[in-house]
């Protein structure tokens, strides 16, 4: 592997160098305890050690609010919004976040491929960074190592407080072309970082668990705690459900149509005109969310649609933990199997 050493003190210079390609987006502090992906104005402000940003990177590919068209009520006509995109480099991205983008690619580009998503994605480069797992990360349990480099153009692996820089694509190579503060070294992958949070089974055993978990008692327990706020899905890097709404200007002559993030955890999500609600109870919605992550798309694509970032758990106001739910389902399944064995 093409590998260089990079001193921590030289990282801002690297970020400045990346700016030659286009806008650089990187994690920044937001308030005392939160982090956010923002455009880099001052490379010294970029945070290299962070647990997770509140909103995932999806916000820059599938914006929370996106104008689709302007319309005229007077003429009953509309003007399309032509999206132009600039080259962007996403710096300091964790492996689970990159994996979420690869999953979003599938969701937005398979079947009917969406042009706005495609345009934003096409012009993007990714520079990864290793991280120290906290109490909520569990990406290893869904098959994503800290040093998983799929999708990245460059990757910074922290070793003894400085970094090794891996070049992973031709695009990555051109990003660092002319950057002098690196020197060639032998790649060594650090194995010191341990995940504290784990799902007890390997992820390829989970489809079987979910196959039999539909009527589990666990869903009622989760629904009991859930307040239905939708924070889990809004902060989820692979959730992509949306609503489309019209806004009329004060003159009532024109307006705009926009796409906004929506959430299957909100009570009216599956409601139709006339009041019929096809997922009326919280228990139906909490189950649906987990099945979206571990069963429906997974059955077709062979991968969990959860990347183990820990956001849904870390930001849940009711203290609901996704890996704990999965572990409870596993436990329930083990009990059922044990009783079955004893009876037989």
């Amino acid at each position, binding site marked *: 592997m093409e590998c260089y050493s990079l001193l921590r003190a030289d990282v801002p210079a690297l970020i400045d160098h990346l700016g030659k390609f286009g806008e650089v987006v990187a994690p920044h502090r937001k308030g005392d305890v939160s982090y956010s992906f923002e455009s880099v104005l001052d490379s010294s402000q970029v945070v290299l050690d962070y647990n997770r940003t509140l909103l995932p990177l999806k916000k820059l590919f599938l914006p929370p609010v996106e104008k*689709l*068209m302007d*319309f*005229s*009520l007077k003429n*009953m*006509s*509309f003007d*399309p919004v032509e999206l132009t995109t600039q080259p962007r480099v996403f710096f300091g991205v964790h492996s689970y976040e990159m994996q979420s983008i*690869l*999953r979003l*690619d*599938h*969701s*937005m*580009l*398979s*079947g*009917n*491929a*969406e*042009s*706005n*998503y*495609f*345009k934003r*994605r*096409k012009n993007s480069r990714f520079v990864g960074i290793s991280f120290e797992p906290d109490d909520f990360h569990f990406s290893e349990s869904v098959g994503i190592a800290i040093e998983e480099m799929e999708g990245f153009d460059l990757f910074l692996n922290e070793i003894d407080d400085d970094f090794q820089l891996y070049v992973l694509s031709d695009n990555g190579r051109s990003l660092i072309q002319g950057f002098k503060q690196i020197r060639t070294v032998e790649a060594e992958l650090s194995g010191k970082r341990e995940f504290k949070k784990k799902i007890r089974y390997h992820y390829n055993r989970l489809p079987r668990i979910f196959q039999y978990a*539909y009527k589990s008692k666990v869903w009622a327990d989760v629904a009991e705690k859930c307040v239905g706020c939708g924070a889990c899905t809004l902060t989820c890097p692979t959730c992509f*459900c*949306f*609503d*489309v*709404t*019209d806004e*009329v200007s004060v003159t*009532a002559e024109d*307006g705009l*149509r926009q*796409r906004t993030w*929506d959430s*299957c955890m909100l009570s009216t*999500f*599956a*409601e*139709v*005109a*006339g009041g*019929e609600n*096809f*997922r009326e109870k919280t228990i*139906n919605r909490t189950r*649906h969310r987990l*099945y979206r992550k571990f*069963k*429906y*798309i997974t*059955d*077709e*694509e062979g991968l969990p649609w959860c990347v183990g970032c820990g956001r849904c758990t870390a930001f849940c106001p009711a203290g609901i933990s996704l890996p704990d739910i999965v572990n409870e389902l596993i436990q329930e399944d083990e009990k059922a199997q044990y009783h079955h064995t004893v009876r037989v």
Partner: protein
Amino acid sequence: MKRLQDVKAKEARDLYYPTMCKVVGARQITDLEKWYELQMPAGQDLGHEPGQFVEVSAFGIGEAPISISSSPSKKGSFELCIRQVGTLTNVLKRYEQGDMIGIRGPFGKGYPIEKLLGKDILIIAGGIGLVPLRSLINYVLDNRKDFGRLIILYGAKSPAELLFKEEIAIWETRDDVELHITVDQPDESWTGNTGVITTLIPGLDLNLNTTIAAITGPPIMYKFVIMSLKSKQLNDDQIYVSLERRMKCGVGKCGHCQINGVYCCQDGPVFNYTDIKPLEEAL
């Protein structure tokens, strides 16, 4: 898994822009339902299958999924029949001849006509369920020799709520249509059947091997109708249902119409019963 590098730039499309269609006919046909005839910009056909739907757009309000009520064999224009039950549909009530309505689609899967050829077609429509099924009925009537018997069961709450009364009058006079209508709440002038739609099923004399049933109605209706059909010895794969869901985008993205892992707007709204029978959220 679909990857970015597998997608060519020209494959990625703007999915959310409507085509502006002209209202060339509009008539309130009951207290709650209005019928519209629409024309595409160049008078071209919509190109739909019986059972498909479109997203109807009213600027300032939004979009809603609406079944196409005319048969593809009708050329030059297409028809919708819309119940005024929500914000958008109540605004559409004001639309008259000459107005423009935004249309996206057609979307989803309709009835697989090639599998229906030569078969006896048993239509079971509850209330507004007749609207999408009218597309199939008229398709069969326009290609009458390609199909066996055409049996239509239609149930409405009251005689006043019966849709397409003039067309029904024509169906009644045809020798090649077996029409049975029932209402739940008859008025004084009603002389026909009374009761829910399942009461029409036991008396049917069906050719078991050649009958295909197409059911559309309120959510509550499906289980009971399917039970009645099963007691007539119809197999699961002889039954098609069309399901209502909140199909917001129509292109398999927004998530609102999901029935377990299935997108109703892509794999439906018309489903063979065998395909949705294992889905807990379907019926």
